[in-house]
Structures are given as C-alpha cells and as structure tokens.
C-alpha cells in the first residue's frame, strides 16, 4: 500500500510496544501511522525468550516492575489468549543458590502481589522429571509463554479496525523540524528505495534499542545502552512449565517452553551498536553450563540454533529527575518527553519488556493525548484482540490434533517438523503477499524445527514461484511491482513478469532463507545439528545443484540483511 500523506501520530517501530501504542491511539480516536524498517517483530520483540512474566524475576530488586508484570500478565491472558500458553512457572533453588534470596522469595512475591506457592520438590519432580533432583526448594508462579508475532499481528489488526495504519519495510531517515515541532518525517521504502514524506502532529518513537538513533534525527539525545541477550533453542520441550533459578537474575537461568521448543536464556553483554553483534561459542558454552544446574541432561539435548536480541536498556542522564529511570540502568520503562530538549511533539518510550508493553503504550498515549487535548480513556486492557479463536490459550498439541482432523499424513505438509500445511502457507500469503520466506516463517513457524529448512524451503519457494506466475496475467501491472515490493527484485534483469524473472526471485528467496537459517546454526554447530547441516548441504548442493543458481553465490550481506536475520 502507499504511504499516506498525513497522520495524527507517527509511531516509529513495529515491535510490541509500537503496535500497542498504535492500538491505543486508534482506540482513543487518533489516526496513527506505524512505520517499521523491517518486518514486524524483527527487533527485540521477536528476539527474546518468549516469557510472559509473572513478575517473579523482579520481586527482589524492583517491586514496582513485579507489580506491573503480574497485572499485565493477567491482562494479556484476557485480551490475547491465543498468543499465550498458560504453562505456569517455577522458581527453583539449585544446590548452590544463596539462601538469603531463597528464604525471602515467597515474602517478596507476596509483597508485590505475585501469586506464589511453595510446592514440594518431590511433587515438582513428578511433573517435570527432567529437572535437577538436587533442587532444594520450589515456588510456583503464574509464568507463561507468549508468541510475539501473533500478538503484534492481532494488535495491529485491532488498530486497523479503529482507523490506524501500519507499514513495514519503511525506514525513517529524517525529520522536518519547524519551530520546535516535528512537522514531517521522511521515509525510505527499504525494498524499492522509494522516498516519501508524512506530515504529522506528533511522533512517538517506540524503537527500543534504536531510540537513540531515531532521536538523533531530531537532534535530541537519548542514551541507550543496548544489552545483547543470547538464547538457545532446544529441539524438544524438556519442561512444560517455565523454570527459573531462584537467585539474583543471571546468565542461563531461565527455560521457557514456547511452541514445540524450549528456550534457554539469556546472557547480558553490553554492545555498542544494536545492529552489530555476533554470538560466540563461549556464550553458548556458558549458557549450557548454567542451564545444566536446572536440567542435568542439558548437555546431551539437541540445540537447534542460537539467536540474540538487544535489550532496550536506557541510560538516564546523571542529573535525571527522580521518577524517570532512577536506577543506573533501567529495565523498567521510561517515557521521555523531548519537550525539555526543544522538540515539543516528540516522545520516546524506552526500556520495559514485552509483558508490560500494553501498559507502556497506555502511559505513552496518556502523555500524547494530554498534549493533543484528547480525554478519551484507555480501553486496551478491557477489549479482547481480534482473531483470538475460541478464547482458549495456546495448547501444544493443537496442530497435531488439527492435522489429524484434516486427515493427517504428509501430503499437504510443507514443513514436516512444525506441521505447517500448504493451506496454512497459502492463507498467510493471501494476507501478507508479497513477502519473504522469512516473513512466512514468522507467521507460520515454517522452517523452525530440527531440519531448519532442509525439507521445506524449496517447497515454499515453489509455492512463491507459483503465486508469482499466477498473479501476473490476472492483476497485470500491479503484479509487476510485487516482486520489487518484496525486496526480491530479479537480480539478473529478466523481463519483469516473465517466468525467468519469477524463477530468479524464487531462488533468491530460497537462498536468502537458507543463509538466514545457517546463521543460527553456526554458533551451535555440533552433534546432530551439524550433521543435519551437512546433510542439508548435500541435498541442496549435491542433489539440487543450488550452486548453479544465478543468485546462489551470495553477495556479502549488508548490515540490514544481517539484522533481519531472524530470531529462533
């Protein structure tokens, strides 16, 4: 779609927070426009461990954060049940965890309003037999896991229902500031390079770790200290509940079951640039070694990939007023009104976590609404998001049950590992075309299982090619633009709309996806996953001749491509 000329509020950043802000604005009658430089949820939102916090992780050092978490945890279960798996969670004291933390834990939970019961270790071991039998104490809390991409999609859908709009692959490259106000923003379409301009009354930057870069475009200083967190994806859920270590938060102390996998998080390493970081073997080793204190068999369990996200940690100026991030580096959120730096209609929302994104959005929009003289109250905590199915929370076996009900078998499975049927991919394409295979992955989990794309990538590429062919005659001129809009313009310069051009686009989509999957495998390449990789290379090069494809010898990736290399 084309970029509108005007918006009441321009929201920058298509993570959960930006989506939440857009929804809240829309529900209060403001016409928002959200722009995201890549696909939605490809920044920090799509690159965290998937935990729906109970607040338990904060009860010791930050009771306010804990309170916010438990409140929003309940809200999200109500408004976005389809994205939530009510796994429950446990804080477990490993043999060497310090007593003072453990002894105070239940009281701290109580003080913060986080539901917490101590349960007998023997009972927990019966439920979660993979846990370390030497665990000393165990506390049950209402942790859960949450699917970020589905959450964003539903949140944006609600915003659209209320008259706002969101555009992906649009990067803000400049602001026009007149008389201490941003009057317009310049956008660049990241796929075809088109430049456009949006006139706006207000700008909200929900760009997380990138907030400093956005603020700089308006000559405003925001100091972020991005913290890289690396996570490991295990092939199977060795636990059906979230398991946290009952100690002061550290590396490798949380395991979150998300869909078919379990995610071990995280490390915390300051990085100068949120777009430029590597995952090292040492980090992987440290995570496994810490995680082993919770699950003794962890070193023998299969890791599918590693990924990292950057925490949007905010570094307040030394002379900051109390209330605005009064810790040295805050994991709580802060709303920065840039009026004090001479730009009246610009706020940044920084810090925070996915669990509290709705609250952050509410507080941000409160500031915006006050400035714009809007008095409509916030309704985002009360209204259920669209597309929540029967209102049930997510259940691990549902795909298996659905597929069985559909007849079962492998005939229509494009992705066998994650049980993604052709119908599911077709449905996604109907809604999101044109898009990349990586976008399809975020929407369907295609390619996210043990084979990491070996058996499904060429199938999905075949479907993409078929769709390109199918749309050319029927939709004529507009179709010619679709490949370009996908960022998949034919590198060989075949005649647009020709079969050869479509083939070039399809094989570029295929190679891009395989390259992207490889990046997550490389830091953990060992055992079966390395064997899988070698087998995959044998299939694609040996049997399929991928090395002959025009676009296969990959050009050196640009930094943006590195970035959109995805999570999990």
């Amino acid at each position, binding site marked *: 779609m084309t970029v509108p000329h005007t918006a009441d509020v321009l929201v920058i950043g298509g993570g959960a927070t930006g989506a939440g802000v857009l929804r809240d604005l829309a529900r209060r009658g403001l016409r928002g426009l959200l722009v995201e430089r890549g696909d939605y949820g490809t920044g920090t939102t799509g690159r965290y461990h998937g935990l729906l916090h109970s607040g338990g992780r904060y009860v010791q050092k930050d009771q306010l954060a804990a309170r916010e978490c438990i409140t929003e945890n309940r809200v999200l279960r109500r408004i976005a049940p389809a994205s939530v798996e009510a796994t429950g969670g446990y804080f477990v004291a490993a043999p060497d965890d310090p007593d003072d933390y453990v002894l105070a834990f239940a009281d701290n939970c109580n003080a913060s309003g986080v539901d917490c019961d101590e349960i007998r270790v023997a009972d927990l071991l019966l439920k979660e037999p993979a846990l370390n039998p030497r665990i000393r104490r165990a506390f049950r809390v209402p942790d859960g896991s949450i699917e970020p991409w589905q959450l964003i999609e539903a949140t944006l859908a609600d915003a659209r229902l209320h008259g706002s709009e969101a555009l992906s692959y649009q990067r803000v490259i400049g602001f026009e500031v007149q008389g201490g106000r941003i009057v317009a923003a310049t956008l660049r379409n990241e796929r075809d390079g088109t430049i456009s301009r949006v006139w706006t009354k207000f700008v909200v930057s929900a760009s997380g770790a990138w907030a400093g870069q956005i603020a700089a475009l308006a000559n405003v200083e925001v100091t972020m200290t991005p913290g890289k967190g690396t996570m490991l994806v295990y092939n199977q859920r060795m636990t059906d509940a979230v398991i946290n270590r009952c100690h002061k938060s550290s590396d490798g102390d949380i395991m979150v079951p998300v869909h078919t996998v379990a995610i071990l998080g995280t490390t915390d390493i300051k990085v100068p640039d949120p777009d430029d970081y590597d995952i090292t073997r040492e980090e992987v080793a440290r995570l496994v070694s810490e995680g082993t204190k919770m699950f003794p068999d962890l070193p023998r369990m299969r890791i599918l990939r590693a990924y990292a996200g950057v925490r949007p940690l905010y570094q307040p100026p030394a002379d900051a007023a109390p209330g605005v991030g009064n810790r040295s580096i805050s994991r709580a959120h802060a709303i920065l009104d840039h009026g004090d730096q001479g730009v009246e209609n610009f706020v940044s929302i920084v810090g925070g976590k996915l669990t509290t994104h709705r609250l952050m959005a509410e507080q941000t929009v409160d500031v915006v609404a006050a400035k714009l003289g809007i008095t409509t109250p916030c309704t985002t905590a009360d209204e259920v998001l669209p597309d929540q199915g029967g209102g049930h929370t997510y259940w691990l076996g549902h795909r298996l049950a659905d597929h069985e009900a559909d007849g079962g078998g*492998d005939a229509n499975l494009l992705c066998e590992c994650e049980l993604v049927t052709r119908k599911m991919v077709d449905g996604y394409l109907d809604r999101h075309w044109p898009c990349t295979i990586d976008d399809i992955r975020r929407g369907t989990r295609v390619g996210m299982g043990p084979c990491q794309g070996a058996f499904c990538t060429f*199938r999905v590429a075949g479907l993409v090619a078929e769709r390109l062919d199918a749309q050319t005659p029927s939709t004529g001129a507009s179709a010619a633009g679709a490949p370009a809009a996908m960022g998949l313009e034919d590198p060989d310069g075949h005649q647009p709309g020709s*079969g050869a051009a479509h083939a070039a686009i399809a094989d570029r989509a295929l190679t891009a996806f395989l390259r992207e999957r490889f990046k997550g495998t490389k830091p953990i*390449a060992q055992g079966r996953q390395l*064997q899988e990789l070698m087998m995959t*290379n044998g299939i694609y090069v040996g*049997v399929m001749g991928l090395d*002959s494809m025009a676009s*296969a010898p990959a050009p050196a990736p640009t930094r943006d491509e590195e970035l959109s290399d995805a999570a999990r």
Partner: protein
Amino acid sequence: MPHADVVVIGAGLAGLTAAARLAEAGAAVTLVAKGHASTHWGAGGIDVAQPDGARTPAEGVARLAALDAHPYAFLGGDVEPAVAWLTKHLAASGLPYVGTLETPIRRVPTAIGGTRRVAIVPDAQSAALAPWEPDEILVVAGPAGYKDFWPAAIADSLARESVWQGADRPTRVVGVAVELAGLASRNNLNALELARRFDDPALRADDLDRIARAVARVSGGRRGRVALPAVFGLDGHAETWAETRARLPLRPFEVPLVPPSIPGIRLWRALRGRIRAAGGRIEVGEMVARIEVEHGRVIAVEMEAATRSHRIRTDAVVLATGGIAGGGLVATGEGELVEPLLGLTVDAPAFDDWLLREALDPAGHPLEAAGVRTDHGLHPLDPATGRAALANVLVAGAMLAGQRALRERCGDGVAIASGWRAAQELLPDTTRTPVGQGPLATRIES
C-alpha cells in the same frame, strides 16, 4: 560366537562395495550398519570427480589426484577398475548405469530448476546427458499437487541461460502438472507412495497415458525430452521405465528428489541382493557398541542387543561409517571431531574455521575436508608414529580426509574406489600384500 573373515561397518556405497567385492571373492563377510543414510539421501548416480573445469571424470580424478591431501592421491588408480566392476554388477542386477570415466561431464536439470554436473548415472537419468540439439525442447512434467516437484517453477528456472552455466541447453522449457487419478485424496503423497504406485501395472498404465497426453499437448510435436521426478517404480522400476520410454512421445529422464531418494533405494537394493547372493551377510539396524582390540589388532565387533551384546569375531574390519553427514564422525560442543567407534585421530581444521560465514559460499566449508588420514593401504594413521594405528582396520568412504565431496563431486568415486581397494587389500589374490593373515587368507587360497 559367530565369526566373519571381515566385518564391514556401514551400508553406504563404500561399505556395500567392499562387502560385495569380498563376498564375490568368497570371503565370509558380514556387513553391519546402524541404518541407511547416504544411499537414501543422494541422487543415485556415481559422482566420481566433476570439479569445475574438468571435461571428464578421468580428468577430474587426475586433477584431484594431484592434490597431496586428497584420497585420490593414492586411490586414483583404483577408480576406473572399481567403478567398472561396480557398474557391471549393477547391470547384472537389472539396474544398468550409463557412462564411464571417459564420458564427458554434462549439466543436467535438478528438482529446483538448477543444474548439476554428472557423467555416470542410472539408465533412467541418462537421457539428460546427451547434448541438446538446436531444435530440442524440454518438457518438465510431474503429478499435480506434489510438493517435491513443481513443474512450472522448475521450467521457469531452467528457461534461464544462467543456470546452465555456459553449457548447451534446450531451446525452450515448458512445465506441465498432470492430474493423476485419485492422488488428490491421498493423505500420504511422497516419493515412496508415487514409486509404489508406478509399480502397480494397472495404475501405471493410466498414469502414463495421462502424462503422455499432457506432454504431447505442450510439446506440440516438437523434438525434445521430458524431465520427470525420480519416482518411476521401486521393485518394478525396470518394467516401469521400459514402459515409460515406450509410452511417452519424448525421451524421458528422471530427476532425483529430496530424500528418501528412490534411485538411491534402488541402488541399495541391487547391491544388497548381490552381497546376499554371494553369501555375504547384511545386518542393518545393528548399532556397534564396541570394537575389541588386542595387541593392535581388532579381534571382534560387538553390537548392541536387547541384553547381552552380540559379538562377531573377525580378522579385519572395514570402517565405512561415513563423514559428519553420515554420522561416522561426530562433533562435540568443545570443538572436537571424534570417530566414536575406535577413537581414531581425526584431521580437522581449527574449531573457529569449521564453517565459513556464508552458508552457501561456493568455496565450501573447510570442515568438509575433515576426516581420518590413512596410509596407502587405507590403514588409519597414528599421528604420533606416522604408522598404521591398527593393523587390520581399513577406512573407506566419506571418512577419508582431504576430500571436498560437494565441491569436487567426488564422494561416490572415493567411496567405491576405497571400498574396492579395502577389499583388494584384504583378499590374498591381489599383487598387494594381504593384511589378513588369518583364516581368510588361508581359506581362500586353499
């Protein structure tokens, strides 16, 4: 305890070749394998040596043999007789192969619309080898709704000059998806299901009729060939293929698919049949638990069993368990590459250099060349002494260090040549000194 003159471990091309040659020569050979891998994963052809720029496999072998570290540096001379011997046996099993080391290397279409370099292929793939005449078209035909073969997309891709990498090519490429009776309602639609369908003469007749009509329609009487997914029969492949050739208006060839490879299963079955017919034993599903070594020699191979282990006493072992892909070499999280059965020393690049930054870098990942170094008689070397680590163990196939099987397209040739050489080394009737001095040598001589 049962006794075998030689225990071959691994059911890939190297192990099968070694076992077939040994059995043929009268040795009591037992092949044990954990399961199936490389045969069932590959294209079913014989990639001897098709590095970039080589015109024939023979030339490819010569080039690779010139590299010090490459197995062909000492196996090069065995490739020709070994491949000739193997293809003779395959033909005798009703699975003829076309091509020799002197056959020009050609580019043939693949199932994603690319091309790959081949020279020696099963007969059913051979029609792709002939040079393309100026007026020839290529029809890509496959069952409608089959997710592993997309005729239109493949045709679109093959219509590009670039994928042929400068080789001659068809003047026009057309894709056609053919509706086969009752397929839409099948829950299990995969290569196996289709291959078994073609084994059924009645279903096959109707399917071939539909394919023939579709091909005739799109080819409009022009000359050319037709590319089909490699699913034309399993047990009944020979008859199926003869009928396919007779029925289609253009000359057909099969294009190999993602695993499980039907051409590869045919190859496994043919070789299994040869080994058994010659009195060899094959035990697939046997996980080797331990190899017993005494005074620098293997004396028995012990397999996992429900209770007490299943032991086979033996005079020699051919270790053909594969490289990393086949599971013969295992990488630990600490950056070690381990040969788990005998703890042989593995020659591997430094941990940080295992993989390149780019998945599909044409240079190929350095780790591909990792493996076990041997003397010229295929005995694994002890790096401390530079001598054979074990007197009666011979290493064959993908485990051999120094090959870049994907880039050089030499994996099958190395497997066959080393499997054959391992057998020759163990048999007393060669000019080389036999390693086995036990019952094997004396019994076969007498």
